[in-house]
């Protein structure tokens, strides 16, 4: 396939990171699209969980909210929200948490709370929702976002959810036993944390993307791995599945009472 957008590449690259055996806690937006493309292509048995309590859900269209009826109707089971967080998330039953971010730093710390000072914010963002505990309770964390200097920043304004903190063994020092962010999928590249410092390092560039582009759209000095691969471009099945899903979704969300 030669004709695809950077956002489509991002979603498809993210979907490839998921496997059939994963139990995945799905954030809304880009993570939700990626998880459902995985389910509709190479990982039909993946367990998708949304924080509304729906376990093993298989929506025909992408939900607008984490609690759309479609999620419950297609789920294996639906549990209460306290049970969702207590037994399933904090009980350690979820292998991958998939999050988006408004602001992200090089150690995978995420801000979705405020731009500026917390007490007198320049912009009040929605906040964490389930993310603070998703970030520490899931086996590992995947993050996906579109690159821009204002979203990939040297210093985030608020620690909504903890990634690798200041890097190194910061998670262990806080008594966190899960792996934290292990993969960042952007519209330009794949990033993985350095094994020692935990700083995100570019391990693959999407087709046609240059190192300079990655740097121009990132607010910190980018580190590249010794060997940087090229992400395989989307195949017909992946791209067709994503586009069909998005077309169904757009049509479904436009309809409603007047």
């Amino acid at each position, binding site marked *: 396939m030669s004709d695809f957008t950077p956002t489509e590449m991002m979603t498809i690259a993210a979907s490839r990171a998921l496997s059939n055996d994963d139990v995945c806690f799905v954030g*809304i*937006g880009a993570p939700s699209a990626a998880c459902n493309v995985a389910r509709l292509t190479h990982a039909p048995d993946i367990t998708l969980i949304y*924080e*509304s*309590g*729906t376990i093993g859900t298989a929506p025909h269209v992408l*939900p*607008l*909210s*984490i*609690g*759309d*009826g479609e*999620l*419950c*109707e297609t789920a294996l089971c*639906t549990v*209460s*929200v*306290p049970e*969702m*967080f*207590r037994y399933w*998330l*904090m009980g350690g039953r979820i292998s991958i948490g998939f999050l988006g971010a408004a602001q992200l730093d090089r150690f995978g710390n995420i801000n979705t*709370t405020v731009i500026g000072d*917390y*007490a007198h*914010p320049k*912009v*009040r*963002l*929605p*906040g*964490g*929702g*389930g*993310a*603070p*505990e998703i*970030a*520490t*309770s899931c086996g590992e964390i995947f993050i996906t976002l579109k690159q821009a200097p204002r979203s990939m920043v040297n210093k985030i304004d*608020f*620690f*909504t*959810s*903890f990634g690798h*903190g200041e890097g190194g063994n910061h*998670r262990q020092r*806080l*008594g*966190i036993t899960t792996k934290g962010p292990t993969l960042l999928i952007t519209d330009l590249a794949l990033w993985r944390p350095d094994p020692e410092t935990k700083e995100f390092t570019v391990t693959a560039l999407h087709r046609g993307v240059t190192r300079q582009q990655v740097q121009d759209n990132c607010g910190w000095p980018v580190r590249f791995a010794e060997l940087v691969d090229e992400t395989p471009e989307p195949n017909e099945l992946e791209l067709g599945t994503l586009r069909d899903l998005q077309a169904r979704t757009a049509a*479904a*969300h*436009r*309809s*409603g*009472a*007047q």
Partner: protein
Amino acid sequence: MADFLSLHDAVQRNLHDGDIVAFEGFTHLIPHAAAHEAIRQGIKDLTLLRMTPDIIYDQMIGMGLAKKVIFSYAGNPGVGLLRRMRDAIENSYPRGIETVEHSHSAMAQAYEAGASGLPCAVFRGYKGAGLKEVNPDIKSVICPFTGEELAAIPSHRPDITFIHAQKASEKGDVLIEGIIGVQKEAALAAKRVVVTVEEVVPSFKGLHPNLTILPHWTIDAVAVVPGGAHPSYTHGYYARDNAAYLEWDKISADRQAFGDWMEVNVLRVGPEIFAQRVEALR
């Protein structure tokens, strides 16, 4: 014991100025009709509890009913920001509000602890999270058995909780199915409970034995309001009005447009309007 009342009377008898109140429903079954009644009655100085303030609190905050909001996700789910709530936080319009912010997990467990009659909820949370620095209600305790440090927050004990449900029996027992959210916990944590329902049926005989979430003797008032969750939804009755959530982003972006919309769609109408609003979504 549940009294069957009009929505007007159910709100007037049970919701008072200065109350701590929860209107719960996790995306599903959000009690919008009850909130609109509170707005029409001009109730003041409320402390609003809700995991996701959603459109329902955006409207109440925008109309000046709230002095404080305790919440965990101030977004219009799937759409973006809550613009009236932002205006209150960023510009004190129409009045300043105090905010107490938690994670979803913490909010859910604070309701659960309240329903359990406990003073606090304890859980493995908030590790490395910035909310600990800005919310003095987030503290920690040491497990007496393992020595592990755990997060502790006060339980939620609302004066009153409003929920919307599919059905009540003639006695006032309440049934919910679909995404069940945190309503059972929010109701059992509260001193008073008001439930709006789609319909009343003679009894729940023959239905699935786990569907009844609240016996009539846990409820103060039941009001029948078909469509009462719109633009949220009622599983088995009507779908979520996603187009209305998208539209809200525009309406709420402008103070004047918001005021005009509330005048026409809330202040000048009554709860019977909700049945019409869901006609096309059934």
